[in-house]
């Protein structure tokens, strides 16, 4: 079954939305549209519900027929028994596209659920109408302020986000909301989030194809539990110039078949999935945090992360820990050239410090900020360092003197632009605030969050731990290096 992409486009960017059958007291979909820029109507025949709907300032009609004008998107929230009837009425009314929020179909495993889904399919299959769902949260479109959950906020800072637009496709409504909110907090502009549930007609491949060609999408993320057409999915990933990050749920062994042959027993879902996704040029991640961490790197990736890194920390212990984390993830932390070492030895404080790479630089930088600039210049000019600079930030530099932190970031900014290398920051909540003996734990969290936000606003990727940074960077560094379809 081929999807009509023009109608799908209209449905995902609607000028008119009608919500049918929504019930109080929450009116989730109607409430979520309180900033929607298009026309919004309700259809409800239940007399008890109508006053609540009208009190939201939304015009209610008693049937789809009565709604004036063209309907780009119909959100169906009726009980499952009448979903097929509403589907017929929507087709008759020439609704452009339908999102079935209504649940209780094949996902229940019940006979009645399967039958109702079959009934829906019979009505919809020979029709050109794009249908998302059933059993899903539907469509979020930031530009139009079309939401499916009020947590998908548009505070002013989110509207000024620069960088790439991330669009998310999710088999789960919860993750659809969580990725939207979480990514925005990390400075990523989430343009779209589409929760597609049972994918009766429009499936994950159709939506991926749409996003690959969508002008308002620069990178694509997935939450998936499985795909219906694995071969098409891989081909689409392979054809995409936009990064595609895929978080697959249900990776445990229970999903694998109990079989006798060696090949099949090796072939757990997750092993094959990871390898084929990587071969196709996608990035397979294991959690929401990893998904967002990888997106952060792409978002700020004027210069691509690759191998041969410089690592800077402020203490000896941290310089060992950061090196372990990065080497564990396959990174090379090379020695610098002799020339660099000769320059460094002239000013570097080696009592309680080291410049071999990793850098234990606290004593040298604290003594004189100019020293930091000198270190950066030497790293930038050293041919052994090619892949980027990772720096461990102690929040004290932020709390002691914000201006100093600003000039610190300014130096890092000119470093990355001059030497065309990414700079990645690590601000570890627990350790970076340990020296603040006068603070309680709550305010430590706040300081750490504030410092991170400050750096995020300057378009620096910020991670909470060396491991998080190393893992996300390794995924990005190997991305498409050996894509193979």
């Amino acid at each position, binding site marked *: 079954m081929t999807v009509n992409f023009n109608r799908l486009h209209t449905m995902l960017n609607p000028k008119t939305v009608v919500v049918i059958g929504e019930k109080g007291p929450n009116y989730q979909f109607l409430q979520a549209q309180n900033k929607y820029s298009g026309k919004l109507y309700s259809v409800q025949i239940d007399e008890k519900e109508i006053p609540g709907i009208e009190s939201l300032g939304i015009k209610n009609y008693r049937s789809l027929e009565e709604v004036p004008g063209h309907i780009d998107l119909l959100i169906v929230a009726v009980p499952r028994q009448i979903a097929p009837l509403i589907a017929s009425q929507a087709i008759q009314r020439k609704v452009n596209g339908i999102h079935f929020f209504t649940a209780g179909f094949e996902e229940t495993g019940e006979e009645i659920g399967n039958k109702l889904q079959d009934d829906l399919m019979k009505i919809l299959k020979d029709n050109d109408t794009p249908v998302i769902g059933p059993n899903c949260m539907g469509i979020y479109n930031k530009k139009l302020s079309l939401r499916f959950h009020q947590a998908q906020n548009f505070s002013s800072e989110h509207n000024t986000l620069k960088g790439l637009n991330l669009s998310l496709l999710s088999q789960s409504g919860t993750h659809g909301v969580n990725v939207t909110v979480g990514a925005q907090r990390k400075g990523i502009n989430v343009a779209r989030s589409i929760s597609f549930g049972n994918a009766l007609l429009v499936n994950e491949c159709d939506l991926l194809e749409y996003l690959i060609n969508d002008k308002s999408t620069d990178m694509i993320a997935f939450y998936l539990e499985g795909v219906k057409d694995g071969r098409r999915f891989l081909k689409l990933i392979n054809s995409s110039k936009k990064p595609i990050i895929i978080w697959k749920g249900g990776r445990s062994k229970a999903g694998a078949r109990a079989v006798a042959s*060696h090949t099949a027993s090796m072939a757990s879902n997750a092993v*094959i*999935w990871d390898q*084929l996704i990587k*071969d196709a040029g996608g990035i397979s991640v294991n959690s929401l945090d990893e998904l967002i961490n990888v997106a952060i790197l792409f978002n700020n990736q004027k210069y691509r992360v690759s191998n041969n890194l410089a690592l800077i920390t402020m203490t000896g212990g941290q310089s060992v820990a950061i090196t372990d984390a990065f080497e564990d993830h396959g990174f090379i932390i090379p020695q610098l050239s002799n020339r660099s070492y000769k320059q460094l030895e002239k000013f570097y404080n080696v009592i309680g410090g080291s410049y071999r790479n990793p850098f234990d630089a606290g004593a040298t930088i604290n003594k004189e900020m100019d020293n930091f600039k000198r270190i950066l210049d030497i790293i930038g000019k050293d041919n052994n360092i090619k892949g980027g600079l990772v720096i461990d930030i102690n929040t004290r530099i932020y709390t002691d003197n914000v201006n100093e932190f600003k000039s610190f970031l300014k130096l890092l900014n000119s470093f990355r632009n001059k030497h065309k290398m990414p700079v990645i920051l690590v601000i570890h909540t627990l350790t970076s605030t340990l020296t603040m003996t006068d603070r309680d734990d709550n305010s430590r969290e706040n300081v750490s969050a504030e410092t991170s936000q400050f750096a995020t606003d300057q378009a620096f990727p910020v991670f909470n731990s060396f491991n998080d940074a190393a893992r996300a960077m390794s995924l990005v560094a190997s991305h498409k290096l050996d894509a193979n379809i």
Partner: protein
Amino acid sequence: MIKTIIIERTTLNKIIRTAIKENRFLLNEVESKSLMKSFNIPVVKTELAQNVTEAKRIAKKMSFPLVMKIVSNDISHKSDVGGVILGINNLKEVESNYNSMLAKIKKINSEANISGISLQPMIEGGVELVAGVTRDKQFGPVLMFGLGGVFIEFMKDVSFKLIPLRKKDAKKMIGEIKSKEILNGARGFPKVNILNLEKILLDLSKFVEANPEIEEVDLNPIIANEKTIIAVDARIVLRK
């Protein structure tokens, strides 16, 4: 040439058809190897003996040492029940082992339907590899390659690619196992001829492409060195 192809297809159909007719989905070792051979995949010459006399007659044609294995559709893991004996050096040993193996297995599993005992020359002097096929629910048929023998279960050092396999896929999957240095002769291992290895993977892919009835294939171990490559065990499962 045309004649050869017809013969191959006949062999194939007969084995698969017979199995399906008998409502069996697991092909035994002799059937599996015969199928592999008809698709130019090198397998150790293996013959089935249904009694001691036959076993001795077959053994006379082969060069010692030999390997004897139980052939039964009811026994999946042969070595677990004492159904594999290595290093048989003469006809006397063929006879005594034939009888003792049967007696032992009947004691363990009196219900098992036993077709006989297979005989084959014992192959030594190579690296043990594995190649296999399985059908993934989402992606369809995929091919696996890795370090074989008993190590596969513990090391899990394998790589997967989609079928049909292209030449570059074969190259890549050989290069991406962790123990790839072993193939280059590291630490005194026999060096493996990579071209032979690529060919066996590509031929296995072709075999599955040509036979949609195939659900799973296990060639484990494949013994490979600089000169030769040969599968010493084969196991094929048909689709239900």
